[in-house]
């Protein structure tokens, strides 16, 4: 083939440009530590990386949900535990009250007052909130679910012959069950509505307090009494405490479910990140080795091109 000067120059320019492009690509790869900069450099990996990143963001938001859910449920567990303690104290108190060595007046001053304290505590616990949300209110998280009042329509006679209005508790929440998603198609019920369990529990405590105030102690009913006796309320308090305990157990089971989901999310997150790194991160050792190699090639190209362009021509030798 006949080679002209222009061809040699053009070839040299082309070779230099090609090598510079390769060099610049490798430099960018090493500098950014990414296998590709735009999707078109490697559409297959880019597509995988896009969907892995998307998965990662989803996992992140499920993780967040798991954290807030677990916070809420741990608070629920703590509150139910305290209610259970109150139930045990109340049963204790009733047993003391059933002791015949006490007079009605002593029962009233010592026991009914203590019982009223327990009622106040139970209501307070029923109104527990997390981040300003009442956890036992069903869907009505923005208002206090339990309100203590006095039943003004009912007037009763106390142990002393005086009259009193019995206490009463109102539940303004509902029975909504709050669902949280910890993964696609994985739902967990986060809350436990205050009705019926806590409401019944508080009502039973009030029944006890009323019986103590009335001096209505043993079965069979003495004349003039219609409400449950202290003796009857013992079974009631014990059974509603058991109900609270059952609720706590079921909450505990769900806490474990959230925890295991949360651990699972964490594991998947790490695996996904690993996979993502395989898809899009540059192998640094390989990148630098290639870069060094390309630099050597480029030097050689420059050397050769310089000779090709400035090659001696016949003119240099003719006189």
């Amino acid at each position: 083939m006949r080679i002209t000067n222009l061809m040699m120059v053009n070839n040299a320019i082309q070779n230099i440009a090609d090598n510079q492009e390769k060099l610049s690509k490798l430099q960018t790869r090493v500098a950014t530590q990414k296998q590709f900069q735009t999707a078109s450099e490697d559409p297959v990996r880019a597509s995988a990386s896009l969907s892995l990143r998307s998965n990662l963001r989803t996992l992140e938001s499920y993780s967040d949900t798991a954290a807030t859910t677990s916070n809420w449920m741990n608070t629920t567990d703590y509150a139910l535990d305290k209610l259970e303690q109150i139930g045990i104290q109340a049963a204790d108190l009733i047993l003391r009250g059933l002791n015949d060595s006490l007079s009605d007046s002593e029962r009233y001053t010592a026991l009914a007052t203590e019982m009223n304290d327990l009622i106040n505590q139970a209501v307070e616990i029923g109104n527990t909130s997390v981040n300003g949300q009442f956890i036992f209110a069903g869907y009505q998280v923005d208002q206090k679910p339990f309100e203590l009042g006095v039943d003004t329509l009912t007037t009763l006679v106390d142990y002393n012959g005086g009259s009193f209005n019995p206490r009463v508790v109102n539940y303004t929440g509902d029975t909504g069950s709050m669902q949280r998603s910890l993964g696609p198609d994985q739902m967990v019920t986060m809350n436990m509505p205050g009705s019926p369990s806590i409401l019944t529990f508080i009502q039973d405590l009030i029944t006890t307090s009323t019986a103590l105030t009335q001096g209505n102690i043993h079965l069979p009913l003495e004349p003039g009494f219609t409400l449950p006796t202290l003796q009857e309320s013992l079974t009631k308090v014990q059974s509603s405490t058991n109900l609270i305990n059952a609720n706590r157990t079921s909450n505990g089971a769900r806490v474990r479910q959230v925890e295991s989901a949360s651990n699972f999310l964490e594991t998947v997150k790490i695996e996904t990140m690993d996979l993502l790194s395989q898809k899009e991160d540059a192998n640094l050792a390989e990148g630098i080795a290639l870069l060094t190699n390309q630099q050597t090639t480029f030097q050689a190209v420059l050397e050769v091109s310089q000779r090709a362009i400035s090659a001696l021509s016949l003119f240099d030798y003719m006189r």
Partner: protein
Amino acid sequence: MPSLSSITTSLQAVLTQSHVLEITEHNIANASTPGYRRQAALLTAAVPSSTGGSEYVNSAGQKGGGVTIAKIQRFNLEFFDGRFRSVSAETKNWEAQTDILNQLEATLAETSEDGLLPKLDQFWAGWQSLASDPTNTSLRGVLLDDASALATAFNRRMAQIDQLRSDQNLSVVSQVEKVNSLADEVASLNAEIAHVLSIGEQPNDLMDKRDLALDQLSELTGSVSHEQKNGEMVVSIGGHVLVVGHEAIKLTTKPKAAPDSGMLDVYWADNQVLVPPSGKLKGTLEVRDQILVDQIAGLDTLAAGVIQQVNAIHVTGYGPTTAVPVPPALKTEDNFFTGSNARDIQVNNALVLDPGKIATADAPGQAGNNAVALQIAGLKTFKGMLSGTASLNEFYNAQVTDLAVTTQRAATNTYQHGLVAKALSDQRESVAGVSLDEEAANMAKAQKAYQAAARMLTTFDELLDLVINRMGLAGR
């Protein structure tokens, strides 16, 4: 026997060799001129004269009459021209596509955090966090921010693609102007070349110029040309004649039919639409009218999917301040998004003014109810696109990958056609290019021949001097 005619022969040789030197000079001067084909003098022996009739030599044959230039040859192979042009037109086609697609990819930046997919994920995550804490008003604000970032991402993409399309439109106009001026140039060169040929001369440099113009024309439009007997070139694009004789047909641009009336199509003078078979113009039109239009359609489908799927669930739900219709009905005034495509998607302003209208519950007056928010967050994995085979995220992922593959193919084709074009161009250069070493040798050859001819001249001069001045002096 020295004669005056020998001096003429020598003179002729001197003149011819100096002419050859001039041609070498012309070659060297144009060694790097684009489109220049090297020239060479075809030397031939001059018409011999008969020696018959001489009184001393009888019919010895004919005596040579020296040297003369038969023709100044131009090194060109039309076969190479045609092949080179068709490949270089294809290269330019892909190159144009690659350029525009690279711009598109850079502006969309889908693999960065600024991509549409991260924005979409952010939006779903916004719903997911609101679902985990539906009474938290700041999460409503966050969701609104995420949603409007998503809407803006759609709007911005459309604006950028529109901008890119109108840039290509301008490029089409300027390419058409260039085609027109090149066609005019070819037509007027046709006229000159035919004239020069008709008086028996060789218009080498004009042909170089015309070939260069034809190269550029085919790079733009994929035009083909063939030479007629009188030396004129007929140029045609896709079977339609562009230049014939010294007439060039003018191309015009006219707006497309509505709604795409901002874009211009290229028309022949007889009102037919020009469809370039190859070349930069083809690449530009293809990207402008197909690839970018497909992108717009994809974005519109995605935006419509987001709007419809989110709204369909949202109107069934209730936020703390949602007006409860009596009797119960879908609350279309509480759509989450307004608009119907990527261009006009917006977050409903009523929700921006009152974030309490963002629906999270499936029944009124239940602050902790998150059923609707959960359902919307679940749309992330809901396969509602491509007749139920893909989620919104997967749909757009596929579109991004498609574009990436298209861009990659364009770049690969540019590179590969470029290699072929380079090889063909080398072949052409190998025949037609100027080699300085060769010219140096030619120069030396002509110089030596010149010197020798001059020496001959001197020799005959001396011989004649002898005859004229020194002979017959006896007895003076």
